[in-house]
């Protein structure tokens, strides 16, 4: 017999999805306004900015005139944005001045390379942080807790690119245990691909482990202070069981949310890491594009990453809802 007539299991998500999309779509639109606006802040004629180094090629005059017309530069700025957004919505992010190919195909080609690096950094970090953070939270103030805290502060304060440089010096140059830079596609040799992956992934891992460990520790300490833990102890439940069955389960949802946020943040951190290790993903593509003032590429990457971040947060939120029925009841409340 069910004591609570809660058959909301199938009913919560359409409402949730509707509300979340009603938030996510304006956010994406505003983000696109930001990308459009910042690009227009760049000094010079917008069509010239888009063409970049292609201006030096023969036939640039016609290309410029055609592009001016295509961008609608004689129309008001709002109309220009509308034209641009129409292109973006159809997946047309422009043409790279350097590569001559479409920006969307470049991004599609580089994205898996970056995704491999980010996942190799963050997935081990989530696992390690769960173990370290929980262990530290069990005895706040103990030597283990202090050590974990000290390490976490170090991981936060150390610049990722400097850490990458140190790892490169020690393991790539001095000890020669691992290749210092470069990339091999997994299709050519999986072993080689992984050897190249270790150092850049380790640079991301250390920073993420610091952030996530602090988070897990704080969350578990907070949960241990909750009344349900007291009740469980009073009922004589084994401490280990309280920890695994209740405390960690309640901390998991927030951890998913934060990990998704961090997943997004890493799309910023990879820029320097990929530059140092010459890992040919989105980060290196961005840096090269900035050097060449290849604006369609910069715009395309920034916009794509924003969309990924919004999507990742949406997925994390949904996962959180599935994991924790209590959060579902708050659907529709002002956030």
């Amino acid at each position, binding site marked *: 017999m069910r004591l609570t007539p809660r058959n909301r299991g199938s009913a919560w998500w359409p409402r949730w999805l509707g509300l979340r999309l009603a938030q996510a779509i304006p956010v994406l639109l*505003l*983000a696109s306004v930001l990308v459009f606006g910042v690009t227009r802040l760049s000094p010079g004629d917008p069509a010239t900015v888009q063409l970049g180094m292609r201006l030096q090629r023969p036939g640039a005059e016609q290309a410029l005139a055609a592009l001016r017309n295509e961008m609608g530069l004689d129309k008001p700025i709002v109309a220009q944005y509308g034209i641009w957004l129409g292109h973006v919505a159809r997946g047309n992010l422009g043409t790279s001045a350097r590569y001559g190919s479409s920006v969307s195909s470049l991004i599609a080609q580089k994205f898996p390379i970056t995704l491999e690096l980010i996942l190799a950094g963050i997935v081990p970090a989530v696992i390690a942080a769960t173990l370290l953070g929980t262990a530290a939270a069990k005895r706040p103030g103990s030597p283990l807790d202090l050590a974990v805290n000290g390490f976490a*502060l170090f991981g*936060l304060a150390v610049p990722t*690119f*400097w850490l990458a*440089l140190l790892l490169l010096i020690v393991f790539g140059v001095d000890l020669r245990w691992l290749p210092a830079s470069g990339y091999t596609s997994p299709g050519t040799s999986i072993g080689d691909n992984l050897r190249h992956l270790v150092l850049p992934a380790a640079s991301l891992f250390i920073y993420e482990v610091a952030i996530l460990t602090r988070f897990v520790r704080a969350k578990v300490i907070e949960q241990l202070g909750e009344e349900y833990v007291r009740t469980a102890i009073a009922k004589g439940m084994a401490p280990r069981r309280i920890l695994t069955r209740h405390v960690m389960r309640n901390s998991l949802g927030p951890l998913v949310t934060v990990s998704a946020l961090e997943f997004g943040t890493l799309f*910023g951190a990879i820029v320097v890491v990929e530059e*140092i290790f010459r890992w040919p993903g989105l980060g290196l593509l961005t840096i090269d594009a900035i050097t060449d003032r290849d604006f369609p590429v910069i715009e395309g990457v920034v916009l794509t990453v924003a969309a990924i971040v919004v999507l990742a947060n949406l997925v994390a939120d949904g996962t959180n809802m599935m994991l924790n029925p209590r959060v579902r009841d708050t659907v529709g409340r002002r*956030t």
Partner: protein
Amino acid sequence: MTDVASNVRVAVPGATTDAGRQGSSLRLAFADPVAIAGLIAVGVVLLIAVAGPLVLPDPNAIDAPAALQGPSGAHLLGTDPFGRDLLSRVAEGLRTSLWLSALSVGAAALIGVPLGLIAGFGGAVTDAVIARVLDAVLAFPTLLLALFVVAALGPGVAHLAIALALVFMPYFARLARSEAQELRTAGFVEAATAYGTPRIKVLFSVALPNVLPPLLVQLSLSVGFAILAEAGLSFLGLGVRPPQAALGLMLKEAQDYVSTFPWYSIVPGVAIMLAVGSCMLLGEGIDRGLDPKRGGGFRER
């Protein structure tokens, strides 16, 4: 495994001594020893940055024969490829980094806090609009957005400051917004409104002082993150330009010497770490003082 139980006992309300809560919230902010340690660390970094140029050799004095040397009596931290004194250059780099970060984070707070207060106290429509704008800025990873803005405006210190102010603004606005939402229904705010105090006055003279302590935490953490971001952008050649000394720029130069003179890569990195670490220590210390029960979970924006 009895430690779980003992921890619970400590965390039960009333079991902890809340004596510190009697004082003003700002005095409370510096009650924790971690805050004192952070304050001292920040003081030392500031001292190096401010007093360094007065007592140290000229950071731009070139002395080619003395290039790439380790620490010595003449050059306490050694020299760079041009024979310039590394300690002097670190001091100058720290100074650039600190004022640039303080300036941009200050600007971020000055724009973000009023925006957040208006959202939190305003009607549902105002709030929804501001909240979505903040979400839109937050959809971009900090470093990538700063990179993009600097790429569009062109490299340089002023553009870097604008970029950093933009990326840190939403964090302040979010903080002020959530504090304002809580305060909206607080008795003393309702009382002030009932007495006919103008809305804008309630906003700034009643609500603002209450936002101040958590704001201090966010400020010191943000300055730390801004130092990291500035170093990263200068490292990529998008921030401070040579010959001005910047820690990120020094690390970029050091990249060419990783196998011949690794010491050059160590010094600026440690300097960044100390500067950032002291800001974070201060932020965490204040946070602990404000809420002794929370063991420092500060990235829970």
